[in-house]
């Protein structure tokens, strides 16, 4: 490969990329929108303490004192009447509520099993209802023991095998960073693909290859330009949201692997597209597949096994661990290694496809 040739090709690539109004406007606007979006997202750390509304028909001062002192698992809010409690739960102001009736109180005081009705707000997830009922059983048992001057002799201890990275809970806006970075990458599939399709459609690639330029040099410059533009955009975004402090080398590696992946996918799409419309129609499908696992990083509960094998999941998960969970280089090295191998394989496939298609033109 001749360095002068590659520098000349790169100069042409950058000139064309930034003279392409669609690319420039789309890339610039997307970057600004994502930076703006980050800054308007909630900056508070979400505190998900279970809460319950309580109305008591009897004076149960001892019971509530014991609850204040001993039960941290669930907080309560006292409601002045049974009707107000039902209303607040029905209107979803409170997720759930209980009424301590005279009978319930008598059963508790007599040490008999008490039937407590748990009222839940419409749409409350089944697992929340079950966990709340379970916690209440424990709280009531604890209260009874405390009022009798003793406590339950149950102690739990949590031991994390390895580092408890979930302890570093991040604000919602920071949790969104990996998702936004990955979305930026996914969206660039279009602009890079269009640049390649234009080259193919205008047959300018033929003119370049009739000059003393090898196919390898041409594609290297094309891909290098694409990768550098994407990396530049993401680094600007990360710098703008202040996310470049943690594990910089690993973050850069993840971005680079993502950029290689994006460039490879755009090359494959461009090889099989004759014009811009054809590229967009194929690109939308690919974009959906690439974007689905990104949301799994934000909402781990929705992740299926197949989402974890889509390379964009590995990218977003690695970035999430590095930026939001304080993970070390070693925690993501395997995942990033796998992602890099897949990205390089897709890029290689893209180069082969473009080469074959251009020769058949």
């Amino acid at each position, binding site marked *: 490969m001749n360095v*002068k*040739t590659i520098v*000349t*090709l790169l*100069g*042409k690539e950058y*000139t*064309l990329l930034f*003279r*392409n109004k669609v690319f420039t406007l789309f890339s610039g606007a997307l970057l600004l929108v994502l930076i703006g979006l980050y800054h308007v997202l909630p900056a508070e750390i979400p505190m998900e303490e279970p809460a319950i509304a309580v109305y008591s028909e009897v004076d149960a001062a001892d019971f509530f004192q014991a609850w204040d002192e001993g039960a941290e698992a669930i907080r309560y809010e006292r409601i002045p009447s049974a009707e107000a409690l039902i209303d607040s739960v029905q209107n979803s102001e409170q997720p759930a509520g209980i009424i301590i009736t005279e009978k319930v109180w008598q059963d508790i005081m007599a040490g008999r099993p008490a039937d407590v009705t748990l009222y839940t707000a419409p749409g409350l997830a089944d697992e929340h209802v079950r966990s709340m009922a379970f916690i209440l059983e424990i709280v009531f048992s604890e209260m009874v023991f405390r009022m009798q001057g003793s406590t339950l002799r149950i102690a739990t201890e949590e031991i994390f095998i390895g580092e408890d990275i979930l302890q570093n809970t991040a604000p919602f806006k920071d949790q969104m960073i990996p998702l936004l970075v990955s979305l930026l990458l996914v969206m660039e599939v279009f602009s890079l693909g269009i640049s390649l399709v234009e080259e193919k459609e*205008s*047959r*300018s*690639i*033929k*003119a*370049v*290859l*009739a*000059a*003393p*330029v*090898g196919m390898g040099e041409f594609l290297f410059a094309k891909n290098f330009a694409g990768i550098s533009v994407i990396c530049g955009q993401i680094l600007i975004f990360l710098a703008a949201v202040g996310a470049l402090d943690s594990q910089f080398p690993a973050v850069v590696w993840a971005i680079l692997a993502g950029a290689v992946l994006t460039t490879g996918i755009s090359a494959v799409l461009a090889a099989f597209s004759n014009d811009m419309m054809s590229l967009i129609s194929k690109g939308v499908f690919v974009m959906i597949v690439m974007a689905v696992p990104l949301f799994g990083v934000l909402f781990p509960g929705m992740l299926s096994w197949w989402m974890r094998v889509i390379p964009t999941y590995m990218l977003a998960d690695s970035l999430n661990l590095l930026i939001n969970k304080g993970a070390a280089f070693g925690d993501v090295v395997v995942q990033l290694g796998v992602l890099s191998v897949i990205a390089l394989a897709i890029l290689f496939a893209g180069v082969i496809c473009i080469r074959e298609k251009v*020769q*058949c033109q």
Partner: protein
Amino acid sequence: MEKYVEALDLVYHYGDIHAVNGISFFVERGEILGFLGPNGAGKSTTIQMLTGQLRPRSGRAEILGSDVWKSQKAVKRRFGVCFEQPNLYEQLTARENLVFFARLYQISGFKPEHFLERVGLGDRMNDRVAKYSKGMKQRLMLARALINTPDVLFLDEPASGLDPVSAEALRNIILEEKQRGAAVVLTTHDMVDADKLSDRVAFINDGKITALDTPYNLKLAHGQKMLSIDLATESGGKETIQLPIEQPSTGDKLRDIFRNRKVLTVHSKEATLEDIFIAITGRGLAG
């Protein structure tokens, strides 16, 4: 004799379709070879093999004695290509297009103005190519093909889309390049261009060369010189008859016509290259 271009039994096929089936020819220094054939005859595939864009399935393509496929970079520095379809960078100016390609050829002290003025684009050199007409793009592609002062020029329908004045200017440039010593491979459908410019012409049909000689020799071997006579009819119309010049009976027939009929015009008529192509291959060039 210096062979600048040589095709040695070139073969190429796309799947089961034999696009080029054993083509051999050469072009000497300072010679223009007209490459004629209908669409799909194998012209473009042959040119693609000669310019290193396609690897021959068998046979060899040589430029100045070097194998095109094996010494691509060195060989590409020695030739220029003007494509049939415009393939310029439309978002760059004409000047930027030429400078970009000159850098790829690593030409030092390159002056794009010289080449742009030569093809009549000196006053539009800073316009983006997207604003150019098809003819202007064609001229710019010719300028691009000349920037490395090539020893071999491949011109694919270079006059396509040009007005008569520009087409004449282009013919002059081709002849200047021939005078300079360049070998020119001219692919065209325009029989007049081929006839005027080519030292030799090659007819290609179904992936094979069916005839290769000077236009004069081809006409001599395959054509007939005719007299075309327009006669007035009794009803006030016109009738055209043709007589072969070289037949002994033509003189007597001509005398009878002049004696008995009212002659409007008399023209001598040579066989065109297209007539000869049809005579040899049984099909027209337009197909």
